[in-house]
């Protein structure tokens, strides 16, 4: 604008006393308008990030920086910004080598200091934070590290004793040795007790002989075994003096330090996968491999030199449960990483929706921003509310884990199973919706969202199949319920205390004040869970009364079991949301929390038919709930950018379509 017309404009505004914005000039070419410039944030996004990340923000930022500033992490400059992401054009072998080289770089910079030798909640939280950041860069590196530190290292720590700790932990932390974790077999995954690998004690030499007796007993999907690992934890049936003592864990060397496979070990690759190709999953056969007696991880049970089986835990069920203890940590990690993946994809999809336009409403008018379409809002905003809810719940789970006591182990087991299943399912759904919301751009690997689907799909399977985990949840709830019914023991723990009180009368949701009140929301969640739990217990008993075994009765009642698992998980998440909200001082942050919490609760109400089936939601109310979801989505629309900015994900970890996608696609950015 030249000076004269500027003056005219100022003057005309004075004279007309109008404050209309500057006249839009028709422009043939689209211009990228940064969403940051449209309006200031209504709340402090740094405070919100504190609530979202929960802990160790400084450590996270440090690691983000370490990644962004190393060429190993494949930085690419597009649209004036640097984006980091593995080069998925590389072959599987190259990707695996890169994962290992990245780990070596991070090791050199002291990232893994204390990951195994440090103790206490502070160390554990820091480790969580750093691992989460690495997962935001690439799932492969997170898994590769998870196998080495948490499965191999965790097994030595939790299942081993001092002699193992002294011998292995420091070397593991420094990557003097590389560990893997051989539990799953071709024939047995979730049913670990059925594995077929056998370790026989030979008292004449004081050694265990580990053998793969048949093809279905080959160890399968063993992360790290394909190429790099030098040692492994082997889960196998322990045979002492002809008696099978059940599943035990051993340490075996599978490669020498030069990477040559050890004698009597055969290793093959699992081949190309739909994701995680930076992880060398392998298969292992043991041909009567001899390992010293000391390599039995003996915190739970031991074998004396002369072949006496000794265990402090007499009950084989409990002994088996103790062997699976390291897996709890894995489930917590998976639940948390699912949340961060959802954050990445939503941040990308929402930022894109705030800059991409399509179709005009009027013939000459400007095209409409994607996120200004109610349908686009309704596709993305409820997912945003779910991510906020999951994020708070994941933080809660982490705190529960680092403050664990022998008494809280059961709660952690149930909650981590429930969250692992629901969060990874939610994540896959969010990824799919975001991929579609980004249109064709979402299909490009460089824009991450679509590619993450393949990378994270595995989360619903590893460390416990989601459905199996959900059954664990409903089984645990059923046990609580029966204890209450039969022994008149009041409910305590797992958030079931409300069951001790009589069923409250639920106010009608048809007014806008009750539909958004946290009390009426949690009441209806409670009612659903209470209803499902009692019906589930009744149905199992009914089958048992007909002569079915407890196991078979449980299997028959799968529908209610699944619904109950979901009801438990969603109720627990809503409860954490409400608790977090209640600790906030009155202000803009609390208001936003209120909207998000309502949107989360009402989305659950809208989507799960078990509310209707239980009869605590009427048909009219269900209609009202659906309308309210739309309303809440549009109320949150102005905060969309602030809400995704509060995730604290650096631009380098999002993707070109989240920023100036016109510039990043310009001819000048094409490599000629």
């Amino acid at each position, binding site marked *: 604008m030249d000076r004269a017309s500027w003056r005219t404009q100022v*003057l005309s505004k004075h004279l007309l006393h109008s404050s209309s914005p500057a006249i839009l000039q028709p422009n043939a070419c689209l211009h990228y308008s940064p969403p940051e410039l449209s309006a200031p944030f209504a709340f402090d996004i740094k405070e919100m990030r504190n609530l979202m990340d929960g802990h160790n923000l400084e450590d996270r930022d440090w690691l983000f920086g370490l990644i962004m500033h190393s060429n190993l992490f494949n930085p690419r400059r597009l649209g004036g910004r640097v984006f980091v992401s593995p080069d998925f054009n590389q072959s599987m072998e190259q990707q695996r080598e890169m994962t290992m080289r990245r780990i070596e770089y991070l090791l050199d910079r002291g990232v893994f200091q204390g990951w195994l030798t440090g103790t206490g909640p502070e160390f554990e939280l820091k480790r969580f934070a750093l691992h989460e950041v690495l997962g935001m860069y690439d799932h492969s590196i997170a898994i590769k590290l998870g196998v080495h530190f948490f499965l191999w290292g965790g097994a030595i720590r939790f299942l081993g004793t001092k002699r193992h700790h002294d011998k292995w932990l420091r070397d593991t932390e420094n990557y003097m040795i590389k560990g893997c974790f051989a539990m799953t077999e071709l024939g047995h995954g979730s049913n670990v007790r059925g594995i077929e690998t056998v370790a026989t004690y030979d008292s004449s030499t004081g050694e265990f002989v580990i053998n793969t007796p048949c093809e279905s007993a080959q160890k399968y999907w063993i992360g790290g075994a394909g190429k790099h690992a030098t040692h492994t934890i082997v889960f196998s049936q322990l045979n002492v003096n002809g008696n099978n003592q059940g599943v035990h864990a051993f340490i075996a060397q599978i490669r020498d330090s030069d990477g040559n496979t050890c004698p009597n070990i055969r290793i093959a690759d699992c081949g190309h996968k739909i994701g995680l190709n930076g992880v060398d999953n392998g298969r292992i056969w043991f041909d009567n491999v001899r390992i010293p007696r000391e390599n039995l991880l003996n915190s739970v049970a031991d074998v004396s030199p002369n072949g006496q089986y000794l265990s402090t835990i007499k009950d084989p069920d409990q002994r088996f449960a103790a062997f699976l203890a390291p897996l709890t940590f894995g489930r917590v990690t998976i639940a948390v990483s699912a949340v961060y993946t959802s954050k990445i994809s939503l941040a990308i999809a929402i930022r894109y929706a705030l800059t991409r336009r399509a179709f005009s409403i009027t013939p000459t008018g400007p095209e409409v921003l994607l996120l200004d379409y109610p349908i686009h809002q309704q596709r993305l905003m409820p997912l945003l509310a779910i991510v906020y809810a999951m994020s708070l719940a994941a933080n809660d789970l982490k705190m529960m884990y680092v403050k664990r006591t022998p008494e809280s182990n059961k709660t952690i087991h149930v909650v981590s199973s429930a969250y692992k299943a629901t969060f990874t399912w939610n994540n896959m759904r969010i990824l799919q919706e975001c991929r579609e919301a980004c249109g064709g751009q979402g299909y490009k690997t460089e824009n991450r969202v679509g590619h993450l689907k393949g990378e994270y799909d595995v989360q619903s399977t590893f460390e416990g199949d989601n459905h199996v985990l959900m059954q664990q949840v409903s089984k645990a709830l059923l046990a609580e319920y029966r204890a209450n019914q039969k022994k008149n023991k009041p409910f305590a723990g797992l958030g079931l205390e409300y069951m001790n009180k009589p069923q409250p009368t639920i106010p009608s949701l048809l007014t806008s004040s009750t539909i958004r009140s946290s009390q009426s929301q949690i009441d209806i969640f409670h009612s659903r869970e209470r209803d499902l739990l009692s019906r589930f217990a009744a149905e199992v008993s009914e089958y048992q009364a007909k002569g079915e075994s407890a196991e078979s009765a449980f299997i028959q009642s799968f529908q209610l079991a699944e619904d109950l698992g979901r009801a438990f998980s969603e109720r627990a998440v809503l409860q954490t949301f409400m608790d977090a909200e209640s600790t906030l001082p009155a202000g803009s942050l609390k208001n936003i929390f209120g909207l998000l919490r309502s949107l989360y609760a009402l989305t659950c109400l809208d989507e799960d038919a078990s509310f209707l089936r239980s009869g605590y939601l009427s048909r009219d109310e269900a209609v009202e709930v659906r309308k309210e979801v739309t309303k809440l989505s549009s109320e949150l629309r102005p905060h969309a950018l602030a809400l995704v900015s509060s995730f604290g994900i650096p631009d380098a970890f999002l993707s070109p379509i989240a920023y100036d996608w016109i510039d990043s696609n310009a001819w000048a950015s094409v490599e000629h």
Partner: protein
Amino acid sequence: MQDSVLTLLYIHFYARISFWKTIFVLFFPFTLPHYECDECHMLRNTYFRRSSIGFSCLFCLYEYSSFFVSHQPFFPFNFLFWSFRFSFFLFFHGFDDLILVEHKLSARILILNRPKQLNALSFQMVSRLLELFYDYESNSDVKLVVMKGNGRAFCAGGDVAAVVRYANGDNWKLGAKFFEIEYQMNYLMATYSKPQISILNGIVMGGGAGASIHGRFRVATENTVFAMPETALGLFPDVGASYFLSRLPGFFGEYVGLTGARLDGAELLACGLATHFVHSSKLTSLEEALCKVESSDTAAVSAIIDKYSEQPLLRENSAYHRLDIINKCFSRRTIEEILSSLEREAMNTADDWISATIQSLKKASPTSLKIFLRLIREGKVQGVGQCLVTEYRIVCHVLRGDFSKDFFEGCRAILLDKDRNPKWEPSKLELVTDRDVDIYFSKVDEEWWNDLRLPKRFNNLPAWAISKL
């Protein structure tokens, strides 16, 4: 004097504003908060409230008055108009000798003109620069802005001695005001829609870096001496340094910001703080060529500077040759770990550079080091606006002396008493905990205090400015 009185009368009469308020606004504008003018949408402190419109700044009022007067040929007090214009000019351009403006065809050359103080930026200078940059952005006659310094410095930084003088005790608000305007200027430059070309022919430090590095082109010469020396002063590298230093290759930014190391023109070009290197003998012709440019097209401007540029050789003992060691040591998580890894390196190799680096870290304020390390790490993952908002929070806490009073001690030791022997408090790194550093990153607990208000930017920004948001 007569002019001023007439101006007052004029504004009083036409804008219907109380006489005292008029006086207040005219003579003490720097004590006022900045508001967005409803006409030109710029942040100004020279505003008047008008009945039905809201806030109008003096500039828009001035436009209004000129229209009003010139469109009424029979206006009996026509002379009032001219006297208003004149006193307006005097008032706002009265400080002009500190910043000289040369009007060229499509270019404006701004010369920082306070050579005795090495062009240190005073409150008036940053206010004036902010105004000028605003005006040039909306003025389509201006295509590019050239900035340079008079004398042997481009600019040696903010006039912190003055800030300390009036920021002592309860008056920290006045000091904060200086930084507020300065950071707003930094933000405007970082997101400027037209190319700013800074000729860094001499000393560039602290605030001087803030007034140049954010712009699109930075021309270094063989006379350039660059440094961010704030940690030795008990302050911290600010003016958006957490943005531009954190974008340097590897961990060079941490090195430059923490140690206050001096860089020459060749190093500046190598690390990317400068975009071009031109020998000082060619500066006059470069300037002439730039003044002939008739567009804001960065490629065209770049091509012109390229013609005068050369590729300088890094000196043999340059820190940039040690990027490997810098990356290895300055990427560590904490200052303590950075120091100990440097000390390990020193044991392995006898290198004066390493011992000098360790020395400068040990001489700096421990609080400043910890603040800056966290700041630059956070800066890596934030846009320039967020960086400046955080820096403004920190500087307010520094001025209030909320945890440490090192800034005042540093100014005493280096700028006032010049004994070069500051007594830092806390005196050791281990005495500054994470909790203490947290204080600096929190909001200031005062009812009237607000986070830094960033100048409003428009949608027509070029891609390179968008990428900094």
